[in-house]
């Protein structure tokens, strides 16, 4: 309410202290009514009223007619107000000294009277204030500007399969930034694409907090995210459920190029050619606490960032990090993890289970165990596809993405064609059942996206699959 407060409380360096104490907003019924009307009917309605009739009477039929609205305009104190004020600063002083004046001004103009000088003076006195920086509400950030930010943590560690480098720092008093770089050891790692599988637990008090949450409903969207949560730890893969079909942080599948590409310039998939060279995988994250220090409990976000080979699902290391904010008015942001001991060779025991849960939560059905080098649908595949047809017919807003994949045996070119054929066969089946092909999309991953960990050259039935994402 800073702007409204200006009407009552001129800046001390501009005018002397008002002779009359400034009233609280609640003591100005006409403005309160304007506020209520704006909320219920919008600015245009308020504008129409201001242009049409005297403010106070229109907004409060029981209120007595204002002087400005009923008396001879020339006799109104508003008529000479500009001259009396002399300047915008003077006008603010007069308004501060006589809080009832503002309603008279509004009513006087609304009654159709004209005073270009006063109009211009008002515009100057209450011109929109340039905002140098976001004026965060006091309840979200510490009110004490001297609350210190924690020192950044920049470190690196040589692991068995490569070297992890990271910087963890407070981005603001409500968010942290973590930049991670993993360079595989090319003497040990063969990988077409290395990216990250990052888990998250995001808590506010005793509750889990999800994207889309509001202060009024911290668990908003719980139903969207809980299918992705590992049952015991409540960890989930850190991804956008509405728009991303993969669990990887920093890479996305490009169906045109048929390969993993970076999500942005600063998210870079890495690679490693055994005995030759490797390139770093890079990512950054800036988790924020939209609600903190507001009486809803301590805010905490914990992440486990795992560089991994996308075509084998093999993890290459692990870094745990995060931040927390106590539920106190001036609580500083505190970084957690990010130390030497938080960077290890092997992910936590539940990381793999959390990754498995991603596939359960993401895909309406997964047709797996295709025969090796075959794309024919099996009876259980058709049963699952019948379920897809039912869901698509029940909800005209849904589309289906069919993503075909092959295991790690065989020739790359052959696997690309095979995975596309598997997806095509599944798509054609639902189209044959009456689903418009325009509601479907095909992707084919060849042997570049492993659902379960597998070694090159070894067949794995769960990777010979078509995963169907309804969205």
């Amino acid at each position: 309410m800073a702007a409204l407060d200006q009407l009552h409380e001129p800046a001390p360096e501009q005018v002397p202290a008002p002779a009359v104490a400034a009233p609280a907003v609640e003591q100005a019924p006409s403005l309160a009514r304007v506020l209520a009307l704006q909320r219920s009917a919008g600015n245009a309605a308020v504008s129409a009223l201001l242009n049409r009739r005297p403010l106070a009477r229109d907004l409060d039929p029981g209120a007595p007619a204002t002087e400005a609205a009923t008396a001879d305009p020339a006799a109104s104190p508003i008529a000479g107000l500009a001259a009396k004020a002399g300047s915008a600063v003077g006008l603010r002083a007069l308004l501060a000294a006589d809080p009832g004046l503002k309603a008279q001004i509004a009513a006087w103009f609304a009654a159709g009277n004209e005073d270009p000088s006063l109009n211009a003076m008002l515009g100057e006195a209450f011109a929109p204030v340039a905002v140098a920086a976001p004026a965060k509400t006091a309840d979200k950030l510490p009110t004490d500007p001297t609350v210190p930010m924690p020192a950044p943590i920049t470190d690196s560690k040589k692991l068995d399969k490569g070297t992890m480098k990271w910087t963890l720092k407070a981005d603001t008093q409500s968010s942290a930034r973590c930049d991670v770089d993993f360079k595989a050891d090319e003497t040990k790692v063969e990988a077409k694409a290395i990216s990250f599988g990052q888990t998250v637990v995001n808590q506010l008090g005793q509750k889990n907090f999800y994207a889309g949450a509001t202060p009024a409903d911290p668990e908003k969207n719980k139903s969207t995210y809980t299918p992705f949560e590992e049952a015991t730890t409540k960890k989930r893969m850190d991804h956008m459920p509405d728009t991303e079909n993969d669990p990887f942080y920093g890479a996305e599948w490009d169906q045109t190029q048929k390969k993993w590409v970076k999500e942005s310039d600063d998210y870079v998939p890495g690679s490693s050619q055994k005995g030759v060279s490797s390139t770093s995988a890079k990512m950054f994250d800036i988790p924020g606490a939209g609600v903190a220090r507001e009486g809803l409990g301590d805010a905490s976000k914990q992440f486990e960032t795992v560089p991994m080979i996308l075509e084998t699902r093999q993890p290459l290391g692990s870094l745990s990090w995060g931040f927390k904010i106590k539920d106190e008015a001036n609580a500083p942001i505190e970084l957690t993890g990010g130390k030497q001991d938080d960077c290890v060779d092997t992910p936590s025991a539940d990381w793999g289970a959390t990754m498995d849960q991603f596939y359960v939560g993401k895909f309406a059905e997964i047709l797996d165990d295709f025969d090796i080098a075959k794309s024919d649908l099996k009876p259980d595949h058709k049963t699952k596809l019948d379920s897809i047809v039912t869901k698509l017919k029940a909800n005209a807003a849904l589309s289906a993405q069919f993503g075909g994949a092959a295991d790690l045996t065989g020739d790359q070119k052959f696997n690309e064609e095979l995975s596309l054929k598997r997806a095509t066969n599944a798509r054609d089946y639902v189209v044959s059942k009456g689903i418009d092909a325009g509601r479907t999309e095909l992707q084919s991953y060849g042997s570049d996206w492993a659902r379960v960990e597998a070694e090159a050259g070894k067949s794995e039935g769960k990777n010979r699959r078509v995963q169907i994402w309804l969205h």
Partner: protein
Amino acid sequence: MRRLVAVLLALVCGACGSDSSTMTPASPTPLPPNLPEPLETELAAIRADPLNSVGYGEKAFTPYEPNEAHALISYRDPAVTRRLLAEIKASEDRVLKLALLHVLGKRSDDTVDAALLSAFKDPELTATAAYLLGRAGFKGYPKRPRGDLDAIRAALRRHLDDDTPFDDPFQRSTFRTGDFALAAYLRLSGPSHFTFDAPDTASVVGYTLPNFSEGERATLVAQANRHR
């Protein structure tokens, strides 16, 4: 008179757009084009509680997360974009307009940019439309077919000095409208073409909420005005 009304409205209403959850009458008659029932249901849910229909993202670079609009965002028919724009133009509820604009900006059809440019002309929507024009293709915002990027950049450039406060009901914060235009301009032009005070800013400018210092803003506006 119009200026006075604007001043009074700014004074009275400038900081009050954050609590429409208790009001917002349902639209009496649906606007064309009619949409499939699940989408109409989502629209009704947004109308019923626009303030809580947009929540926080989990990341600083996804500050807005529409809650009730999964189908409105993913349904491919451009008719959805037309309907959302019609709803925005017909509404007198500022918070509802902003909520619907956030939904529109996450869609992927090739009419989205034109719709956002249309909304950009409404002073109540300029900041949010600028944000959405700038952030296609990253974390939750699809790589939609882009409109005339030169025209978009030109429109943004005209607002680089726009000091109008933008009271953001979803963030409960006030921003400078021009900062959204500046951030979007830098993003669309390629952050690598510009020099930032903090190097990290380049990776998220246009995605995070704008937070330029006065000095950095002045420097970047000058760079933006030189950049064509």
